[in-house]
């Protein structure tokens, strides 16, 4: 029994899902959920702004995943769980009339379609990446370089620049997003260029 427990904790998310689908045993989902429960709780807090409600919602999400994972094919569990949690939060807010939105059914649980962007990034040369980094706005570029290249923490960046910790975080997040977009744009342009040449 103890050996089995050792084994289960070493299984990957996907392996746990497969095992659950095969054996229908709660221990697999319990292990799986325990890896992310704190994140589900945190996201719920962000939306619901109340600890008791966030705890209830975390429990609900646990119940829902046990049902959904029986049949649902999930290739990236954390991404899927994030989306599921957000949906549950929105449903909860709608139920309590704390948000007015267009009615929405719950089939939007597909994982984020980000693998295409990632593929493009993987194929990007470092030189291109650094070149595009230079094209960012000065504050974003400075914070990105200090964080990613100099490996400085937010606290360290804050003490060596005029920016507050909040600004540093924001510059890095926005810089990262802009950099990705520039790289994707760059890759798309190259693809089109190649297609034109071959035509």
């Amino acid at each position: 029994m103890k050996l089995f427990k050792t084994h289960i904790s070493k299984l990957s998310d996907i392996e746990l899902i497969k095992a659950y689908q095969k054996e229908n045993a709660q221990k697999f989902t319990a292990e799986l959920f325990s890896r992310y429960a704190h994140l589900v709780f945190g996201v719920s807090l962000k939306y619901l702004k109340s600890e008791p409600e966030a705890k209830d919602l975390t429990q609900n999400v646990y119940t829902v995943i046990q049902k959904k994972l029986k049949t649902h094919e999930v290739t990236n569990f954390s991404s899927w769980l994030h989306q599921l949690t957000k949906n549950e939060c929105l449903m909860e807010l709608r139920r309590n009339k704390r948000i007015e939105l267009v009615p929405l059914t719950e089939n939007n649980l597909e994982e984020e379609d980000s693998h295409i962007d990632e593929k493009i990034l993987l194929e990007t040369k470092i030189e291109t990446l650094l070149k595009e980094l230079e094209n960012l706005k000065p504050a974003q570029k400075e914070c990105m370089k200090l964080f990613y290249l100099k490996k400085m923490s937010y606290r360290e960046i804050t003490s060596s620049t005029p920016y507050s910790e909040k600004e540093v975080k924001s510059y890095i997040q926005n810089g990262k997003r802009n950099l990705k977009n520039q790289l994707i744009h760059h890759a798309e342009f190259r693809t089109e260029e190649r297609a034109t040449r071959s035509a």
Partner: protein
Amino acid sequence: MQNSELKNELLGAHKEVSAKELKDYLDGNLSNSKARAVEAKLNSSDFSSDAADGIKTYGTVASAAAISHKYASSTLNTPLLLTFSSVSLGILGVWAFMHFSNEEGISSENNFAETTQEQTTLTPTAEDKKASYVEEELNEKQEKAGKTLQIINIPETPEANKIGAQESDPILFSIETEHEIFTLNPLEKKKGKLFQISEKATLKTQSARIRHYRNYKLVDQGIGIDESLLHPIIEGTPAFKETIVINPKYPGWVPADSIYRVSINEGIDWIISKDYAKAKMRFKRLLENTPKDLSSSFYLGYTYYLEGKHEQALTYLQMAEIHVIQTFDHDARFLEIKCYLNLGRDEDALKEALYLKNADSFYAEKAMELVE
């Protein structure tokens, strides 16, 4: 150099931060290098980043740690296992491990883990009930959506569902059913339906896009609110304003969930800039298509109030008060008090003020000051 790490970090989309890391980070117990490592994870994952924001802003680190512990199904004594593995005891080692681990007392943590799991796992009955409840609710919603909606045309161009830049342009809603996504135009002057569908889009053509926008951070500063949407426009009340982040790659598009909010927010912006005519036009048009839309009722009433047209204001504020009690009830009643006082209807004002006082409303004190 470390340049390839930049690429790796940009790609590290699915490295979630662990409960312990998050706790230590938020408690400020980490060295700069360790804090930086956690920050890299937070930067690479929206899930972790959202969770950290939520815990930092609205919760406590201790609660998050307790939640994580609650669901822990296995408290493996990793160092012990690694020791056995590293000395390659093979079959003998495995046998020894099983033998010792079956003995009571070798790891009190393991026993505790089992107890914890038993305590925290839902009983099958409760679990089934919850699952069944969720399913029933979803079925009901889908059925309701199916009855409410009616397809009236199917234009081909995807450009049609861009959000309108001008007031005269259509502003479109989206709705998803199990198999399809519809884009709706609530501003079309067609009556009899809650929403009129002006465009049908297949999953293939639009689902990915709409999903992509939804996955973008729809709102920077939280969606649920305890206080009402009135607050950003009443001085001195808790600030709340949604910020909608639009993907720069598709600047004409907004997340499906946010389109309705965009149309309301534009109206609010017109109120703030004192362009009351435009604001009224916006909320009236929304009301024509969604007569029970309390946000539009409320803000239309508020616009009339600001114009000094108290009778008209009361009409719409009372609608907002009636439709959904929890959201606009107190805000609407507070404005009604002001309208009644302006109209010389002191008794009505007092009645509403007492209601707010008894309800221990955010506005109670201010309301009583007004009537006294």
